């Protein structure tokens, strides 16, 4: 079933801080039937957490892939029914391909210090960036 994936975009890379990202690129992703549908770019506007979450809902996003994100904003987006995959870095097209292939958890797509899937585990419903040092001691 196709879903709309929103990726925080800054010059073709995943934007480093979603709280101040100006636009997202929207990809319609169907894991079973890959298509060549071109992505759409949309501006996010207002930077308040609830306005950002509302805007993503308006855009029909079901999953958000982004870089760093503050706790308040992540909570607001999750509360809007959108899955958040944070602490991701790299080229947007490659990130989307990795999402399709189920390879987004690879360490090369993690922001420095945020490890891979093993280290971006869920903590109370939110994915947190855990450094290797944090993981070892926890």
């Amino acid at each position: 079933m196709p879903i709309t994936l929103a990726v925080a975009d800054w010059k073709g890379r995943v934007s480093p801080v979603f709280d101040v990202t100006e636009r997202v690129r929207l990809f319609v992703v169907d894991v079973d039937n890959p298509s060549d549908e071109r992505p759409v770019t949309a501006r996010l506007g207002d930077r308040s957490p609830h306005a950002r979450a509302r805007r993503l809902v308006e855009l029909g996003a079901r999953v958000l892939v982004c870089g760093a994100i503050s706790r308040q904003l992540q909570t607001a987006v999750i509360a809007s029914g959108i899955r958040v995959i944070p602490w991701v870095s790299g080229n947007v097209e490659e990130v989307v391909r990795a999402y399709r292939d189920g390879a987004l958890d690879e360490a090369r797509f993690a922001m420095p210090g945020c490890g891979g899937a093993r280290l971006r585990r869920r903590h109370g419903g939110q994915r947190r960036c855990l450094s290797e040092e944090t993981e070892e001691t926890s």
Partner: protein
Amino acid sequence: MDDSQEFQQREAAILDSINEGVFTVDLDWRITAFNRAAEQITGVPRHLAMGSQCCDVFRASVCETNCALRRTMASGQPMVNATAHIVNQDGARVPIRISTALLRDDQGVVVGGVETFQDLTQVERLQKELQARYTFEDIIGRSPAMRRLFETLPPIAASSSTVLIEGPSGTGKELVARAIHNLSPRKRKRFVAINCGALPDTLLESELFGHKAGAFTDARRDKPGRFVWADGGTLFLDEIGDVSPAMQVRLLRVLQERVVEPLGSVQPVPVDVRVVAATNKDLADLVRAGTFREDLYYRIRVIHLRLPSLAQRREDIPLLIQHIVSKFNQLQGTQIAGVSDDVLTRLMEHPYPGNVRELENIIEHAFVLCQGSIIELHHLPLELRPSVPPAQGELQPRSLRAMERLLIAETLERRGGNRKAAARELGIDVSTLYRKMKELHIQPPDTDGRGRRRQTRSMS
């Protein structure tokens, strides 16, 4: 270990000893050095930061749109103390202050940039704590006089005694009255304010005590007075020193009997009102002069508060400026950061006959003219701008020499050019004044104090 390794180790040890976060980047924005404080603030270990894109490690609010380092690389100019926030590993927003500079090799060729940043979390927390400590129900101040006032307000509010607030215009008498109401058990009922000096007697009587339909021409309906309106709450009688003797008698009766008689009614209405009265006059003087009833005076001054003028609490001026600037920023949607050092110096020395209200008007005026982020001298009202232009080769505006020059020039101006009077006011000899005027290139005003006095004498 060769020389270059030794040099690198020494460099790393120096960087690690600094409390501020420091990182360097090459021309591809990849991190080439990352000190221990940077690890602590960002939460990213050094070995993972090295070689990564700086924006993926730093994660600052300015990275995308207003990167300080990018601006420095483009302009060649260092940036000092820009503010931003980063999102750390826990998803917390950390306020930071950033400075940047270029890195050059031995030949002076730019090879990258260096960014230093300081975690302001603690500073912001302390600032908020201080702000809370120096703010009391919208009243701002950290001077001893204001802190004493803050300490006395809660017990005053807890009682139901009548309060007299004396203080010059613009010192915040109504703010204090509101604070007393807000802190009192009466806070859920009304706070009703009336300016007794603004209304003629007949109107004031009707406003305070109300009237019955038909009590006078045009009184078509019953109207409850402010006393009844404030029942259970607080009535603020501003400019109490301006009420007529007849009205004083009526007020005295209400305060004694706790009943009001609306105009045209024979039925007294009981009221439970706390009265807070205020005046910019010295009521004791009015009592001595026989224009204010002594019995009413003692009835209203059960608790007596005297508010200091702004000139008596100059140390509060910077705090008040900060408060007024953020208030106007909120009201007008602007982002003015504050006032320049010159403006602060000028505002600190102004006499403020209109007290805090005058300071507020000055800042409001500056907000209209200020298009940038800092209020400068030329944004102030004309009368507050320096009367003397800076001398040739003037030192820094805040130097002791510049301050001395300004002070002497203004005193001479104020004294109409009379050197003797100016010297007396400044606490120096006339000969010292002449010497300083020469040294600091101060031209005396066109009018000469002595000449004018001679002229006046000859005219009289």
